[in-house]
């Protein structure tokens, strides 16, 4: 297959077209000239021959009529106008024989006569042409039968015909000259026209081959071309040289794009991509190349850029991405995760750089860092991801996903008010895998609904089990924004509650703030249906999703959970304290209940209580624990001091464990 550069190479096409057009014109002129010349020659010849034949017929008649030899001579001499003393430049040669004896003749010798008589199809009354001593002659023979056998032979060099032909040839050559001139003009004109059109088409083709039709940004083909162009001259240089040029490849993956596509439709998704690509282009300097490589993935190729600068560019992109975008009257907030791979440290060719930027991007997405520069250790995570992805289906079938529970506590009484169900993958070989390692895989694999049904079923089943033991405990289940687009969700929940004969108010549905704000109309509709059947609703991670208060006003929910990032350090950070206090006031005034996440000390629990918060959840009370551990705690007051429970783990575990 040819390359794009071959497509753009039109050298030679034009000159070949010109040569071909002129060649054709010369050929046509030559053929028409030859044909016209021959036609004129044939016409002239037959006219002259006709004239000669007529003369011969008249002479023969006169010769037969006259018996006098002298008179006969006179008749013949008048042929060439001898009587008028005007000599023709091409005289008629003649010979007359009567009774096989020559009576009179001029210019025709026996040799000439024998040539005439040896022509094919010769008979005494015929005519034709011969060549004698390199001169062409027309001849006519006439003969009368007995009693007086007379034979006349006339010959003539057709000089007037030659003159006519010269005349015709001159005119033809002038015409040929004009035709040739016109042909050159048209050759130039047509070749320019064809080359122009071909060039335009080729440019369009190469644009189509190297650009994404939706956003008109360059595509992977163009990216690889640019990277190769940049890296080629560097391959021979020493990497350790300080002045070696460097470059960075940023792989951008939009967060929550799939949710937009699935909930609002692909048309909105496409418009969002177009709007974002324009935004990115505005942020980026003209020297960098922005490429869409498919789906919601973009690549920014920054030549002559170091790691620090690349990170700055990445941060700018993230910032621009966070600003809400209006698409089809929907205000969409979307995030981005960016992985950075640098040339030449992380790879020296396009494939490696893209692969490693992708690995870094995945880590950034998983850890919610936003931007991550590639590290070698990321590779092992990728191997794990591939393995988990392949085992996901069998894990679902074999029920390897289990629920862990984290108690929510009434701060006043320190009693368990309910629990939040958090999913764990009990892998037969790898042990317990936290949700952040596999939720993304489930979302990408399109099995969110099936997975959520499974979790809801498990949770309701557990509520039933507790009810059977006379324990009334609410269980909160996290759902994904994908579930909102599923029309079967609410009927399924009704069905499950019926099946286990569980009152709807014991089930709580949690949705993160950012997910609920993604498509406020759908969220509102689903929440309304859930409230109608009596299920409790709560907004998770409140304060991180940049939601508009106007939207919050519209969503009637039972609980709002203040994000742990504000609660964790509020003991030491007066600003966090101020935010938490104000948020609690706001939530209480809106008529919802506050649940503070991330309580890690008694002091924090007290502070929340003083600020007016009723419920708390966090490592101070309990980390998420399996069902058997939880069952032991249930009748007790909290905080408990169970020897099996390692309390207050490092913050980082706390952060990772809180999602489910």
């Amino acid at each position: 297959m040819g390359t794009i550069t071959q497509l753009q190479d039109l050298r030679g096409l034009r000159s070949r077209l010109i040569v071909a057009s002129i060649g054709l014109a010369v050929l046509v002129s030559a053929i028409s000239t030859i044909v016209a010349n021959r036609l004129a020659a044939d016409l002239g010849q037959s006219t002259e021959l006709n004239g000669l034949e007529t003369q011969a017929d008249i002479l023969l008649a006169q010769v037969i009529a006259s018996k006098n030899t002298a008179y006969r001579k006179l008749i013949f001499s008048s042929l060439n106008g001898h009587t008028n003393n005007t000599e023709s430049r091409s005289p008629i040669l003649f010979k007359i024989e009567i009774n096989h004896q020559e009576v009179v003749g001029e210019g025709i010798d026996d040799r000439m006569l024998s040539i005439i008589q040896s022509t094919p199809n010769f008979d005494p009354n015929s005519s034709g042409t011969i060549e004698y001593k390199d001169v062409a002659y027309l001849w006519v023979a006439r003969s009368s039968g007995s009693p007086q056998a007379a034979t006349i032979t006339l010959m003539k060099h057709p000089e007037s015909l030659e003159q006519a032909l010269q005349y015709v040839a001159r005119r033809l050559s002038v015409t040929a000259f004009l035709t040739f001139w016109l042909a050159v003009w048209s050759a130039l004109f047509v070749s320019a026209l064809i080359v122009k059109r071909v060039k335009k088409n080729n440019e369009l083709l190469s644009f189509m081959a190297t650009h994404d039709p939706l956003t008109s940004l360059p595509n992977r083909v163009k990216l690889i071309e640019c990277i190769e162009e940049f890296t080629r001259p560097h391959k021979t240089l020493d990497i350790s040289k300080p002045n070696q040029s460097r470059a960075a490849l940023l792989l951008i993956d939009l967060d929550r794009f799939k949710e937009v596509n699935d909930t609002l439709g692909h048309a909105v998704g496409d418009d969002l991509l177009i709007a974002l690509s324009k935004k990115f282009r505005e942020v980026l300097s003209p020297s960098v190349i922005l490429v869409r490589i498919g789906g919601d993935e973009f690549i920014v190729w920054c030549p002559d850029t170091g790691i620090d600068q690349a990170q700055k560019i990445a941060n700018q992109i993230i910032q621009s991405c966070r600003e809400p975008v209006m698409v089809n009257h929907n205000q969409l907030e979307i995030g981005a995760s960016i992985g950075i791979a640098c040339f030449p440290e992380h790879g020296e060719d396009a494939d490696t750089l893209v692969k490693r930027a992708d690995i870094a991007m995945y880590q950034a997405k998983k850890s919610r860092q936003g931007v991550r520069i590639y590290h070698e250790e990321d590779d092992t995570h990728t191997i794990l991801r591939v393995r988990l992805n392949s085992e996901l289906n069998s894990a679902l079938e074999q029920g390897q996903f289990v629920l862990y529970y984290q108690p929510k506590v009434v701060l006043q009484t320190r009693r368990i008010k309910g629990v939040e169900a958090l999913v764990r993958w009990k892998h037969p070989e790898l042990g317990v895998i936290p949700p952040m390692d596999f939720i993304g895989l489930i979302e990408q694999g399109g099995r969110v609904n099936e997975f959520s049904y499974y979790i809801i079923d498990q949770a309701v089943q557990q509520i039933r089990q507790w009810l059977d033991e006379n324990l009334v405990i609410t269980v909160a289940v996290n759902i994904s924004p994908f579930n909102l687009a599923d029309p079967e969700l609410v009927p399924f929940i009704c069905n499950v509650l019926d099946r286990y004969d569980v009152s709807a108010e014991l089930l709580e549905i949690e949705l993160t703030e950012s997910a609920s704000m993604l498509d406020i109309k759908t969220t509102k509709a689903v929440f309304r249906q859930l409230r109608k059947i009596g299920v409790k609703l709560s907004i998770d991670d409140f304060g991180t999703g940049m939601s508009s208060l106007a939207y919050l006003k519209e969503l009637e929910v039972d609980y709002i959970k203040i994000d742990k990032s504000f609660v964790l350090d509020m003991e030491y950070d007066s600003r966090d304290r101020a935010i938490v206090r104000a948020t609690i006031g706001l939530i209480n005034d809106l008529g919802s209940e506050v649940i503070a996440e991330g309580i890690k000390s008694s002091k924090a629990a007290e502070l929340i209580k003083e600020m007016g918060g009723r419920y708390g959840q966090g490592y101070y009370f309990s980390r998420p624990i399996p069902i058997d551990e939880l069952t032991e705690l249930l009748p007790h007051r909290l905080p408990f001091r169970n020897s099996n429970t390692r309390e207050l783990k490092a913050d980082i575990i706390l952060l990772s464990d809180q999602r489910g």
Partner: protein
Amino acid sequence: MSFPDKNLNALDRGIRGVLGVITIYFGLFGNELIGDLIVQSILVAFGIVNLISLASGWCIVYHFAGINTRAEQ
């Protein structure tokens, strides 16, 4: 009459001038040689086109073909 940008160099204009004069001469006085009114009229027309090119430094065929001998100099 105004023409777009000139596209003929001095040599090109010179050749056109000579050709123009020759063809007009034959068109007008080439009765003996050519002896055809139509061919002679075409020759005169060609000659006039060439003389216009000489005077203006612009050729319509070059213009459409995208050729410019002036720029190459």
